[in-house]
């Protein structure tokens, strides 16, 4: 089994960015996230804040794992509480132009909190977690970058 190489990198990590007309960015090369620690970002269109954490310890290539996703208006603000059907989570490798080999399930576990099961990263390399939030006709994406 490959040794854990887990980097979590994200835009606006540590503070919610000021409202802007420009989407915030995600870029690699950031501190290593500790298991269980929340990692925050803003959606690209700046419509919501989003965080995730692993529920199964360190994320590695191979084994399946679950994560928890948190949605809020701002990091310290009110929860963005939506039905699970309006929250979609996926992981993709943009360098290779593919995603995971399996679908995930999203379950609402508390206001603005969602348990995502069935995640599995089957290759070593750069991955992006996508959290797509649908409100009405508009679907907006927040993304996290990972290196496993």
């Amino acid at each position, binding site marked *: 089994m490959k040794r854990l190489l887990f980097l979590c990198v994200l835009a606006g990590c540590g503070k919610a960015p000021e409202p802007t007309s*420009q*989407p915030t*960015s*995600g870029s*690699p090369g950031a501190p290593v996230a500790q298991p269980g620690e929340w990692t925050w970002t803003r*959606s*690209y*269109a700046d*419509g919501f804040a989003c965080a995730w954490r692993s529920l199964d310890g360190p994320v590695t290539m191979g084994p399946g794992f679950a994560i928890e996703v948190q949605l809020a208006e701002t990091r310290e603000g009110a929860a963005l509480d939506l039905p699970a059907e309006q929250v*979609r989570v*996926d992981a*993709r490798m*943009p*360098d290779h*132009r593919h995603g995971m080999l399996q679908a995930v399930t999203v379950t609402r576990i508390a206001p603005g909190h969602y348990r995502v099961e069935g995640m599995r990263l089957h290759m070593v390399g*750069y991955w*992006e977690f*996508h959290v*797509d939030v649908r409100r*009405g*006709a*508009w*679907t*907006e*994406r927040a*993304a996290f970058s990972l290196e496993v």
Partner: protein
Amino acid sequence: MIAPTLLLLASLIATPQDSAEGPSHLGQPLRTQGDLARPTAVAYGPNGALYTVDPDSRRLCGFDEAGELVLSLGMASTVGAAGLHVDAEGRIYVADAWNRAITCLNNEGRALYVIPPGALQRPGGLATHGDELFVADEDAGLVVVFGPDGKQRRVLGAGVLDSPRDVAFDAGGRLGVVDSGLAAVCVFDAEGELVRRFGEWGWFAGLLADPSGIDSDGTRWYVADRENQRVQCFDAEGKALYRTGTHAILPREGGGRLHYPSAVALRADGQRLALAEPMDQRIQIFGPAPGAKPAPDPTRPEAMQPAPHYGPSWSMAGGYLAIPEPESHSVRIYDLRLTPGDDPVRVCELGGFGRDPGLLRDPAGLCLVAGDPLELWIADRGNRRIAWYRLDLSQAAPLAQDFRAPKLVGEFDLVEWFATCPDRMGLTYVPRPVDVQRTEAGETLVLCRANRAVLRFDAKWQLVGVWRGENPAWIEPVAIAWQAPRLAVSDLALGRVHLHDTAAGAQTLLGEGELRRPMGLEFTAAGDLAVVDRYQSELFVLKPDGSVTRHFAPGLGREELYGPSDVAVATDGAWWVLDHGNHRAMVWGADWAWRQAFGSKLYTRPARKPEGEGAKGAPESE
């Protein structure tokens, strides 16, 4: 290198397989019916005659077995014939997608009745069974059934179908519906219940990519698999039996090589298969061939071919060019900093076929917006939504590929919006976006085919206005260009460009008597309007004073185009033409001096040759 040579020779000799068995499948190319401009549909009559509709040459034609013309009827230039059927009594049914009507003719071409606009949104393929007429309605996502009096009786496929293109019956009275949006065939029983669905998107055997035609020999289904460049034969259970045709590699290559086969027809005796290829202006006819299945051709990959198929639209801004790649349903981003002199460099791509966020089903129109960040807006006709991407690319950074650069900011779902919108401003149908533009004020302009209108959305996706064509109304608007406060709309059916001064509220018509089938268009810095004409294979420059200049001619050479579909004007005044039918892009300087061609080697080579060295001659093989 003897082995590959022998392999190639063996494949040429043994395709289709020689066999002691008699003919068992339809795979032998017999002849090509040419002298057509854009045959969009085919049908066999009970007498064995082959019929086709050709909206660009404005004809309905019939041919006998030898290819001799036995019927020729004129059609109005505004008839967008998209479906054709001949019933057992020889009555001819023509579906007019642009005018949303059906015409039934007798075998001499006299109109028996017309189903007028109102019941259908975008009629395509048709079939009869008993005394009923079944029509695939792509934009409504239904099959609509009419009685012999032309009155609507019922609909099929609600909640099942997405974008049905064609229909056919088997001997058991089951209705096969080919659905390009689902990339599948849905089979309904006589009661209209779905009994089977087969196929999904892909390019391996049994999968489909933009299937658009279907017919039956009674027991088997034949599906025109457009983007896989083949016809697939399925048994009644949906099992793929064999394929007919392989992808044409050489320009206009025939003899069983196919190029976007869009419609298919089986003769009543099951001994002839006709395939319409609108882009290559022809119908190929196949007959019985020996062997259980055509031998795989090692020189022709089954998978997606590597040559670029560009378009049919593109967008240029900020030193970048965005082009859809039809087979993969992705959008490729090219860096232009090495041009002229070298080819554009593909730096990233996005999309791919699908419904999930970030995927595309039919990227019909693009709008690249220069700035920091660079933005790309996509009108996804298949998913009926607008996708907004941020591209983390910079001309100041070293030239490099970066497939992490595209970031999906969000998507606006026009189906959901239409269902919940409190004020639709008179829009009748669920929008089907075909082009998109962004204004300096942050509005998003969406050209909607279904409603024949431009929808104006503000930054919060509130509908703030609707622009429609006036005197006459638009029929088949296909592309828009924006240069504040002017909006230009090209109408494929009317053969004109509407210029709408949105500040003054005045509309004028451009290109009357000059344009036939205008496609993509763009304003120049001087305020002129460049527009390409698919039918005439020319670039037109329309000036505000009403004067028109015309450039280029049909062909493969340096000053030639073949079914161009879009145009861009670079900041240095260079003319960039998306030469869709030639799978290439052509570039001329502001002084009209030829600069370069890029794309498929086989198609760019004739243009790269210096003048006088066969630039207009037949293309060479690799």
